[in-house]
């Protein structure tokens, strides 16, 4: 949207809006200070009092869940992970993890050693999330000696920050209850529908006798039909639940859960509870919704924002979506989130310069006839002159695979010819294009590989019915296709990573790993494109190559992730 106009407040609402916004700002300040306090207490208290949580979380493996933070295994320095830096600005204390992380060493010792690029995570169904909330509510209800209904309201009010809730509650119980809309008055006058004669509803203008009406203690009274219709609109169309305001003009009063229970129409209670559940996940730093469209699962992961320069936390949802827990973009290992963001921005800014490269057609370097890329493989053979060359670097294909050939590395030219500004800027553009070219190529190739797979799949189905091959017997194609997709995804991001990488003695190992994976992928891709009638005979070889590709990928990711944790990589930009 190109517009950035400041929206005008209507005069009638201006006064009340200003009046209420001031105390709210103050409230934030106070709670910030409290949060700071609770951190230092947390720090002091943690080593001495590891707290055991009830293990009844409705999950199949509590060990997994409990050891998330403790076995995060961010190298040596991770042992001090509870020690929040003094200048840490994002306050992200999560008692669950702090508590859970402090014990259960046995589970960690017994678990198979994780690769450096793997993080622990857990996928939750909506039912799991509900029972998690129930457990926490029960726990806190016990502690505060409040009914669970009221505790739920309190927890939502403090955005599921247990520490903060307990502290503020202990500090000033009355005030806390008041703020969450649970004050004495509510207890003495529980919300109820009142029949009023001679009342005119300001929304529908109904004024008949026996009109059922409702108002909170702000005294904005409307007929219950209107109230219900208003809630329906908010819940169904606007997706609100935990923080719906009174329908009165300019009134900031949040409708409390008891009133909602009284008024939300039956057919909406499911939707309403769904939305409440969403706020639970949204309020917790350790939980995120799977970004796949229509996916109902949430993922829990202990990696914090401040860890993201040392780890790329790829998680895998039940629905097969692999995404980064840090930024919820599709899996971008081995490239850290900050660099991904920078790279995407750069590619957008430079899209015009870069567009011509990713085009599907190029000219044969020998005879100049036009060649179209219609498969994922980079090994091109000119139909006219039979020249075999590499699509990426346009060099001779025969030279790929010999040890001196480097298609993946950008050769910095010697300092002498990059002396003037123009030459320098040309070189920096060339450098960018080198990496962008390869990045875009893998993106495009992954698409083409997928097309080929679908074409092949259809032929395979045909083959099955004519030749008696079983569905199981053709699954190696599926495996190869998935390996290609996955490896190309990884390779793609190795080029964005390499673009920001400053040379040191680690870089060469990285480039070798990259080249090995690149070659393994090209080999598999070439085989994958063979005519269907040859594929059955290539089955064993193809399965081998698939395994090999996946192994090369793991080697590359593991090495890159290890160096990232140990901070051995030097980047030519700040990791900010």
């Amino acid at each position, binding site marked *: *949207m190109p*517009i950035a106009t400041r929206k*005008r407040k209507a005069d009638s609402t201006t006064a009340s809006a200003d009046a209420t916004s001031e105390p709210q700002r103050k409230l934030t300040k106070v709670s910030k200070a409290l949060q700071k306090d609770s951190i230092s207490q947390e720090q002091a208290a943690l080593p001495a009092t590891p707290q055991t949580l009830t293990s009844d979380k409705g999950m199949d493996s509590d060990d997994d869940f409990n050891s998330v933070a403790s076995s995060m295994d961010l190298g040596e320095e991770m042992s001090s992970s509870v020690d929040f830096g003094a200048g840490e600005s994002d306050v992200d204390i999560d008692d669950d993890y702090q508590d859970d992380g402090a014990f259960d060493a046995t589970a960690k010792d017994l678990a198979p050693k994780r690769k450096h690029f793997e993080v622990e995570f857990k996928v939750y169904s909506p039912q799991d999330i509900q029972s998690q909330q129930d457990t926490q509510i029960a726990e806190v209800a016990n502690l505060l000696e409040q009914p669970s209904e009221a505790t739920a309201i309190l927890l939502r009010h403090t955005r599921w920050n247990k520490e903060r809730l307990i502290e503020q509650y202990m500090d000033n119980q009355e005030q806390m209850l008041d703020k969450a809309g649970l004050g004495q008055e509510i207890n003495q006058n529980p919300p109820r529908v009142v029949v009023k004669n001679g009342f005119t509803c300001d929304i529908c203008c109904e004024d008949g006798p026996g009109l059922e009406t409702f108002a909170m203690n702000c005294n904005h009274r409307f007929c219950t039909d209107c109230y*219900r219709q208003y809630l329906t609109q908010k819940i169904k169309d606007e997706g609100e639940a935990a923080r719906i305001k009174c329908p009165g003009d300019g009134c900031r009063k949040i409708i409390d859960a008891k009133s909602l229970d009284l008024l939300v129409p039956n057919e909406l209670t499911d939707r309403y509870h769904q939305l409440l559940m969403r706020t639970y996940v949204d309020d917790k730093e350790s939980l995120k919704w799977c970004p796949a469209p229509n996916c109902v699962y949430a993922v829990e992961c202990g990696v914090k924002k401040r860890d993201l320069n040392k780890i790329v936390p790829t998680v895998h949802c039940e629905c097969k979506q692999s995404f980064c827990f840090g930024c919820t973009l599709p899996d971008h290992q081995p490239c850290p989130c900050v660099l991904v963001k920078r790279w995407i921005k750069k590619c957008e800014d430079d899209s015009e310069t870069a567009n011509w490269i990713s085009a599907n057609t190029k000219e044969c370097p020998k005879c100049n006839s036009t060649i179209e890329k219609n498969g994922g493989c980079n090994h091109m053979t000119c139909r006219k002159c039979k020249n075999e060359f590499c699509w990426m670097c346009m060099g001779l294909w025969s030279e790929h695979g010999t040890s001196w050939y480097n298609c993946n590395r950008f050769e910095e030219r010697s300092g002498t010819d990059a002396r003037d500004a123009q030459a320098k800027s040309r070189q920096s553009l060339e450098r960018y294009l080198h990496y962008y070219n390869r990045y875009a190529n893998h993106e495009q190739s992954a698409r083409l590989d997928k097309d080929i797979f679908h074409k092949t799949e259809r032929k395979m189905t045909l083959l099955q019915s004519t030749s008696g091959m079983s569905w199981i017997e053709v699954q190696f194609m599926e495996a190869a296709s998935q390996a290609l997709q996955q490896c190309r995804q990884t390779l793609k991001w190795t080029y964005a990573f390499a673009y920001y990488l400053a040379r040191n003695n680690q870089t060469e190992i990285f480039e070798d790993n990259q080249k090995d994976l690149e070659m393994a992928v090209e080999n598999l891709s070439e085989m994958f494109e063979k005519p269907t009638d040859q594929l059955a005979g290539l089955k064993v070889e193809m399965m081998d190559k698939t395994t090999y590709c996946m192994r090369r990928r793991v080697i590359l990711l593991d090495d890159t992730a290890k160096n990232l944790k140990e901070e051995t990589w030097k980047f030519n930009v700040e990791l900010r």
Partner: protein
Amino acid sequence: MAGMSGKRLQKELAKIQGVLPPGITLVSAPDLQTWHMDLRILDNPLYPPHDHYRLKFSFSKNYPIEAPEVVFLRLTTDPRRDIPIHPHIYSNGIICLDLLDAQGWSPVHNVESICISIQSMLASNTKDERPPGDAEFVRSNRARPRDINFLYHDPSV
């Protein structure tokens, strides 16, 4: 509960056909979906007191739970109507006013109170200008007013 707008609009109409604040007139209300109102701004030199501005109200079945869509119309034949110059009114007639979107709307508002709000927003204006990015917005916008996310709320202008 479909069509709750009916009874409410009929009541509003009955009231509007009686007395209205100065400068606000009902032009036509042929049905319960679209009404036209005229506004005059009485004491602001930016808007000559004899100029009328035409507002078009469109109501959904859900009115007044849902805000109506309100835009200024430009009429080139008799009677001529222009779109008033204001930093929150685009030259295509779309008005950027918080009480007209879901967050700022209260079902207690009505056609009359909206007219009064818009009238007073014009009466207090001192800037003879369109919103920034007006030309670009008018050229590219295809969204209905209620689906536009205006970015900032600024009570001072």
